[in-house]
Structure formats: C-alpha cells, structure tokens
C-alpha cells in the first residue's frame, strides 16, 4: 500500500519536474544576425510609431526627432538553408535571410516594436554586425550602446560599423558565396583586421574607448558595392558617443602606424626627381608616443618606424643601395606630411583617437588632476597642443626583382 502511494506520487511529480524553465528551443528563436539603424524619412516612408514603450511625453527631447528605423536580418533555423548551396546569389539577402523593418524612438523601443510583429522570440546571441547610418552615429549612440551593453546575449566581439549610405542597404546586400549575408560582412571586417587594414575595434573595444577619459573611439566606415559586398572606406571617429568625422583608408594606415599596430597593411606611393614611381607597403610598424608637460603645456612627440617592402616600380628600373636611401627620404617626407594632416583633422574635430589624453593622465597625474580634470577640458587642450611627428622608413625588401 505504502509503496503504491510513493509510486503514484513519484509519477505525479513528473508533471511538475519538467526540467528547465529556460528551455528555449532553437526553432523558437529569431536569431538576429545583423541590425541596421537608420533615420526615418517621414515623408517618403509611411511608418507610424506604435505606442509601446514610450508615451509621447516620456520621449527624451533629443530622441523625438529623428525617429530611427531599425532593420534586422533574421535567421530562423530550419527555415533558411544553411551551408553553401551553389548557384543563385546576388539577388539580395531576402532570399537567404529574412529582413524586417520597424521604427522607434530609441533602440529598445524599436526592438520592442519588432518583437510585437514576430512569432519567434528575438535572440541577440548571434548578432554579428550593427550598422549605423552616418546620421544616427552623428546624433549620438548612447541608447544603442546602453541597450546592447545591458543585454547579456550580445557578444562583445560583434562589430559596429557606420555606413555612408542607408544602413539597411548594407543588410540587404547579399554576397553570392555565403548563405548568411551578415556572416560575410563580419568576415570582411575580421579579415581586414588580420591583414592590418583595420584596428581591433570591435564592440567591446569601441565601448571602452568611447567611455575612457582622454581617448576617442573609432569604428569602421563602410560603403556598399554593387549590392553584394562592402568596402571598408575609412574609419569613423567619435567624440564622446557622437561621430564627428571619418578617416580615409590611407589615414587608417597612418592611424595604425602611429599606434605601432602590426601587421602593416597599407602602401604609400612616392616619386623621385628622375621620374620613377615606387609603391612600398608597410610590413612592420613600431611607434613610440612621448608626452611631455612643460610649464603646464602638454606636448607630444610621435616617433614612428616603418619597415617597407617595395611592391611596385614604374617608369624606372634602377633600384640599388643609393636609390633606396633616396626613396626612404621621400617616403619619410611624404609620410610626415600625411601624418600631420591627419592629426590636424582629429584636432579640428576634437577627437583624440590616439589616446594622448589617456596617456597624459597616466603619466602626469598631477598635471591632469589639477588642470585638466575632465574630458571636455582635455578636448580643448588637445585642439591646441603641439604634436610633433617623426617618421623613419626603412626599405628592407624588394620582392623577386633585383633592379
């Protein structure tokens, strides 16, 4: 009798012991692979913002205008084909992933609106790339950063990029060789980084830099090419959480050289008086940033050493010891010029991407605590400060040709 009672209660308990509360099947998730954030053009597109999160009077003033348009690339397992499947492609990413759009006043607001339209639960664990339209980046990225930081699913190794054109176009671009478009985009960036064409500025690093004192953040600036791939056309740099400008690809090279980041990936072309044109690619970069505070005036000295390999020679056929020295001189001259120009650009926009402020704060704490104190003061000082650049180029190799 007693055994029977135990048996029955055990059987009955299976109703309550169904396992995990957090059981959350793959097919029930809408995996967001990419997010694109645009400014909504109210006249051309007729979206209305549903009243879900905010009440009209609760919307912070700066978010009232413009309203953001969120585009998400979703992959629903079992519903998209995974793995390469020959043929097709180039038809836009709608074929392989699902692209949905909605609007909102801030990112969380837009995400809530999006969830309101979908059967599956949004899942951010596979988010690869977040594309911001330039206007959004200039409006300020506080809401976007905060939401993504707070959400524990988001990987800090995802990428955030700024797009020159509409951000949604980036997500609609579909490379013919990869079935999940967002993966291709993030691979493009990851490999650029490996080849020395981009700094290691994924989400985690970017967030560190924009919040640190005395350093500005930077993220890739991209353009869509032929609707199926992206080009890294520069690096957007920030002052606080607002984008203030962007560098050209060559200036990324300059930026990386100043930081001494390896491997080198950018080339520089110079011509000598006798008409030869030589292109050398940097292979190893070393840099030393020296900071000095004299009479309450900070100044910085950048000493950059670049090892160069000659990759192309036209209109001449005369490489030798002497010529190499001459080319090095030319390269140094032109590099210093370019470096200074780039620095002036940063100064103008008050964006200290090199972290000179952070270094000053670390090395001269007294000066910082007494005279600078805040980030805001630093950007004024940075604007005025004297930054000297020395570049030393050293041509080490010239490929398979002797001359």
């Amino acid at each position, binding site marked *: 009798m007693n055994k029977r009672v135990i048996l029955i209660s055990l059987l009955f308990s299976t109703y309550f012991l169904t396992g995990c*509360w957090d059981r959350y099947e793959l097919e029930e998730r809408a995996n967001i692979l990419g997010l694109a954030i645009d400014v909504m053009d109210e006249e051309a597109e007729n979206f209305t913002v549903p009243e879900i999160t905010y009440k009209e009077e609760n919307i912070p003033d700066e978010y009232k205008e413009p309203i953001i348009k969120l585009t998400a690339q979703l992959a629903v397992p079992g519903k998209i084909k995974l793995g390469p499947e020959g043929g097709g492609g180039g038809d836009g990413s709608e074929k392989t992933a699902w692209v949905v759009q909605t609007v909102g006043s801030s990112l969380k607001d837009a995400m809530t609106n999006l969830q309101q339209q979908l059967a599956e639960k949004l899942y951010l664990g596979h988010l690869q790339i977040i594309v911001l339209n330039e206007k959004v980046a200039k409006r300020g990225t506080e809401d976007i950063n905060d939401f993504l930081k707070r959400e524990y699913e988001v*990987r*800090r190794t995802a990428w955030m990029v700024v797009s020159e054109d509409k951000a949604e176009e980036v997500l609609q671009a579909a490379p013919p060789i990869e079935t999940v478009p967002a993966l291709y985009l993030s691979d493009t960036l990851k490999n650029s980084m490996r080849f020395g064409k981009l700094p290691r500025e994924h989400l*985690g690093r970017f967030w560190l830099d924009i919040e640190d004192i005395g350093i500005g953040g930077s993220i890739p600036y991209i353009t869509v090419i032929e609707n199926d791939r992206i080009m890294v056309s520069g690096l957007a740099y920030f002052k606080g959480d607002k984008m203030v400008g962007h560098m050209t690809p060559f200036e990324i090279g300059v930026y990386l050289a100043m930081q001494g980041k390896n491997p080198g990936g950018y080339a520089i072309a110079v011509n000598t008086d006798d008409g030869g044109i030589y292109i050398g690619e940097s292979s190893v970069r070393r840099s030393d940033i020296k900071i000095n505070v004299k009479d309450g005036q900070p100044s910085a000295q950048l000493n950059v050493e670049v090892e160069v390999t000659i990759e192309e020679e036209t209109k001449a056929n005369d490489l030798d010891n002497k010529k190499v020295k001459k080319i090095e001189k030319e390269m140094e001259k032109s590099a210093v010029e370019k470096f200074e120009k780039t620095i002036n650009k940063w100064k103008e926009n008050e964006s200290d991407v090199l972290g000179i402020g952070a270094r000053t704060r670390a090395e001269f*704490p007294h000066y910082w*605590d007494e005279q600078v104190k805040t980030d805001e003061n630093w950007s004024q000082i940075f604007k005025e400060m004297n930054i000297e650049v020395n570049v030393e180029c050293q041509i080490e190799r010239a490929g398979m040709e002797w001359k």
Partner: protein
Amino acid sequence: MLAIPRAIIDKVGNAAPLASLVGIGLSSIGLLGLIYLGKRFPQHTFIGYNKIILGKTIGSLFMIVYLMLSVILIGLDTRQFAEVLVGGLLPNTPIHFSIFFMLLLCAVINYSNVSTFAYIHFFYLPLIILPLLVVILPTFKDIEYYHLLPINGHNLSLNGFMSGVVTMMGGISNYFVISMVIPYLKNPKKNAKGGIWGFFIGTFLVLLLNTVALGAFGDQKILEMMWPTLVLARMVEVPGEIVARIDAIFIISWIFAVFTTLLSYYFIVVRGVAEMINSKNYRFISVGTFLIAFLIALIPSDIYDVYNYLLFLWVGGVIFYILYVILLVVLAKVLRKKGSAV
C-alpha cells in the same frame, strides 16, 4: 571573483593592484596568526582555543558574533550567485530555486565527515583555476599601459587607499576555514606549508584578475560594469577561434568557485555551532543553517542592496578577523595558554 575588481577600483581607482598587494600582505598576518594558533592548539578548532584563551563566557560571545557573520555571508553570497545566474544565464528560472539548490547541496555535504569536504575542494580546484587562466591570459593583449598608471591612483588619500585594501582583504577572507580544519589534519603541526601555499595561489589569482581587469578596462569604464570579470570573459577571443564564447565555460567554473566558497563558510558554521553546543548532530545544525541562510538570501530587495550589504560585511568582518586573531595570539602568549599535546 566577479565583482571584486569593481569594488576595489571604486575605492582606489588606478591604485587597485597596489591596494590588492597590500591587502594580501595584511591578510597574510592573519593567516600566520591562525597557523601559529593552530600549532599551539593542535587539537582544537578556532572555536575551541578561543574558549581556552578567553574563558567560556567571553569566548562564546565572540564566537556567536563570528558564526552569525558567517551565516549572513553564506546567505548574501548565495544571493549574489543567484543574481548572476538570473542576469546572465537563466533569466526565467525563479531565483529562489537557484538559492535553494545551492544551499541544499552545501547542507547535504556537511552531513558527512571532513574528508568528503576536503575531497570536494581537491576535486574542484583545477576546474576553477584553469578556466580562470584561460580567461585571464588571452586578455593580456588588451591591456593598455595607460590604464594601469599612475599606480598610486589619482588624488588618493590614505584613508581611501586603506578602504580599498580592506575591500581586498574582505574578498579573500575565506582562508579562515583553515582554522577549522587544522585539528582534523593528520599532522596538525605541519599545517603551515599547505596553508601558505593555498593562500598565495588563491590571492595571486585575485591580484592577477584585478590587474588584468584594470589594465583592460581602465578605472572609469569598470565602474559601470556589474560584473567586470564576466565582461572580460565575453571579450576574450581564443586564438584559432575554436570556441566563440568563452563566457559559458567561465560561468561554469565560477559556479564551482562559488560552491566551494559557500561550502567553506558552511563548514565553519556547522562545525563551529556543533562545537559550541557540544553536539555531534551535524545533520540538525546543517538543516538549521540552511533555513536561516535561505531566509537571509531573500532579504536584499535588489542587486544594489546585495552589494551594499556584502561590502559592509566584508569590511566589518575583516577588521574583526584580523584584530581578533592578533588579540588571541598575544593573549595566548601572555597567559601561557597551551593546548594539550597530541
């Protein structure tokens, strides 16, 4: 382990590694004191010799305070553990269940004898240390020297610095368990070597963690993070990209770490109470502790409360521990009290 870098950096900013080092130094005084007492009273636990030195009434009074502190710490630590689980791993699982099962596990293990306790620690040690190293080592490339300088912090007063030191000492205070296991050792007189080794391996890891977290995040950004170490684990990219997300592994190892920590406190409480009331009924005490700790874990209303209480107790507890141990050592010498020989 998850919040310590933030707690210390909040107090001392860039001076965190230095403060940690000083904290380790000061804590080691407490450790040496305990080891000395252990040698002097090889057959008694902390509770036991403190009765001998201070007399029954005063000794018991102090011990009640000490044991209560430990029970409260068990409760709060469990709550912290459960908050991380809810916040980062299992958002839908009711928090009561995480607390309940963690405490239940501790309670059940404390039914049995000391060697079970020792084997569990022995078994989990590598499972804690290895994943922690896996997280820490690849982050070295993210360390910026300008996050670490100046090593004495910005505008830091001695008072501020000391509060950071005390926070660190609080974070590593569970070496206290050694005072409860000494009499169970095969050779209590030889406890010094093992105790010191264990202490320095553990504290070195905490020091490394603080330094790496500061170096990677800087003294500003880290204050905004709930659990800096967890964020660190999420930023790590393992070379070769074998696994994309380290943080899952890290959380598992962290669960082991919390478990062994709680188990230590629990052990102190169960054995301590048993010795105080001269009972061997560990089961009964274990269940009682379980109920009290469970209720305490439910007291804080939110995560900020949890950390306020925890920090308060850490600081209070540490001052109590160190001063008390020094007092005991001095009194034992002056009064020439000695435990019976083995």
